[in-house]
């Protein structure tokens, strides 16, 4: 079993009577790219802010690299890199000066780490340009450079691709995948750009209204989201037996309410309808279904909310 890097147990954050995070249980294992999925205000950022000590939990437990006490947690945080919300730096300093300031403050040995971090995010040629003159994309890159400067074992990234251009998004994705592959860097990333998360994450945590709804691995999710034909019939067990006997189908599920989900034979649905009708089974409906991460999430939270 993989080592747990980050575990939260019943982690809760309240602001007065409002509950931002409600008893969240999360487990991020070593080498995971954990996608935290939720709409705006669901509690994603608050969770990351609690992990990165920017806000204190109201209750619950936080375990980071096995550490739970306040002093131990502080030491554990030195093994993380965080980029939470819009990256913030001193506006009157250049990218290099900002990173040098934090390098000195954090006691990271060697000035070369600043250059390496800037090169990693393609900001090595910004020269004397002050942070205040940076575009949002450049700010995001510098935020990532800071998060990477101490070679973190756990990266905490909150909406990191906001403001990046398409090329930047691809570079960013490749960089994260490379870090994960080469150094086994564990990554907790929140985003509402689900298509991008789908390109990265090895597991997902779905959160809504502060509550964790589900944690699922990417494989399991792919399994749940794969294409299928959903049939609605009057006698599902009999229909299933027919499909198995006459068409040799094995890959299907019988669901409550007279539904059957077929994962094979999708290319010739008329064979299925012919068989069922010829055997006197009433077919009320047949639908080709396939979900992506977005559909799955919307389905999980009960659809799109209006108003």
């Amino acid at each position, binding site marked *: 079993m993989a080592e747990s890097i980050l575990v939260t147990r019943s982690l809760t954050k309240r602001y007065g009577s409002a509950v931002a995070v409600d008893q969240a249980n999360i487990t991020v294992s070593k080498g995971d790219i954990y996608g935290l999925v939720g709409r705006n205000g669901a509690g994603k950022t608050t969770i990351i802010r609690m992990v*990165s000590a920017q806000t204190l939990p109201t209750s619950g437990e936080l375990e980071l690299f096995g550490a739970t006490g306040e002093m131990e947690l502080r030491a*554990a945080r030195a093994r993380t890199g*965080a980029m939470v919300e819009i990256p*913030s*730096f*001193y*506006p009157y300093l250049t990218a290099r000066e900002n990173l040098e300031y934090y390098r*000195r*403050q954090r006691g990271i040995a060697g000035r070369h780490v600043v250059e390496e971090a800037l090169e990693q995010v393609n900001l090595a040629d910004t020269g004397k340009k002050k942070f205040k003159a940076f575009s949002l994309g450049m700010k995001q890159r510098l935020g990532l450079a*800071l998060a990477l400067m101490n070679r973190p074992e756990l990266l905490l990234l909150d909406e990191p691709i906001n403001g990046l251009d398409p090329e930047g998004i691809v570079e960013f994705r490749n960089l994260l995948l490379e870090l994960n592959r080469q150094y086994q860097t564990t990554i907790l990333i929140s985003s509402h750009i689900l298509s991008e998360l789908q390109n990265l994450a090895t597991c997902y945590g779905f959160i809504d209204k502060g509550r964790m709804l589900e944690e699922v691995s990417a494989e399991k999710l792919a399994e749940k989201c794969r294409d299928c034909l959903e049939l609605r019939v009057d006698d599902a067990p009999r229909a299933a037996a027919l499909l198995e006997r006459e068409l040799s189908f094995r890959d299907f599920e019988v669901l409550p309410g007279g539904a059957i989900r077929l994962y094979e034979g999708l290319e010739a649905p008329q064979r299925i309808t012919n068989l069922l009708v010829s055997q006197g089974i009433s077919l009320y409906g047949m639908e080709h279904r396939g979900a992506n991460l977005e559909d799955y999430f919307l389905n999980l939270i009960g659809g799109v909310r209006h108003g």
Partner: protein
Amino acid sequence: MGKYLNAEVYKAIHRKTYTLGALAVILGCIAAFFAMMKGLGGPGATFGFFVSVLCMLFSAGLYFSLLGCDIVFSDQYKNNTLKNEVSFGLPRARIYLGKLSCSIILSVIFCLVIVVFYLALAWFLFPVGSEGLNGQELPTLGRALALAFPLWLGGLGLFQMLLFLMRGSTSATVIYVLLVSGLGTILRLLGMAIPRIYEATAFLQTLLLQTPFEQMPMEMDVPHAWAVGMGWFLVSTAVGLITFRKREIS
């Protein structure tokens, strides 16, 4: 703490425009003052006289301390840079005390530059007087500095606490100025308006940072100044540390 101070000094040095600009304005004002005094001339305008004037001007150090603190604090809440520090696991006490220590270092450097510049100009431009130096100028200056230093520290501690407590530097500055220069007047007026509390307000006035300066140069109660200055420094630092410990960084 050494690393933290190193970083803060690095940042202050790289804020050249603001740091050097502010210092240049102060030195420029001093130069203008001496130019004006030179123009006025007069038999009393001797080096010894300007040393006494300098001692009287030390109360302005309570406001110069705003500068050192502001350079180091650098609008943390506006720039939202504290999150970079706490997320790395730096203890909040180290963050608070590190910035305070750097403010003190910077303010002491500022103070030295200003005092040396002032004395150098006074020495260069004005005669020591027909009676020469009476040997009291430097001891007087030393005593005035010994009196002013803890009060400046108290002011620094108070302003840093306000910077950490309030969201904006402007509101912190306004409250600081009100506390330092306005509270004495309020207490005096209260004492006059309500005779019953006159003694209490008179006592409270002795605890203000401004009071020992007001009693100069007739009375230089250095121990009292240390008690008042360190009292403000320790209490405000304790309050700042306690409140910053639980503060939301957002």
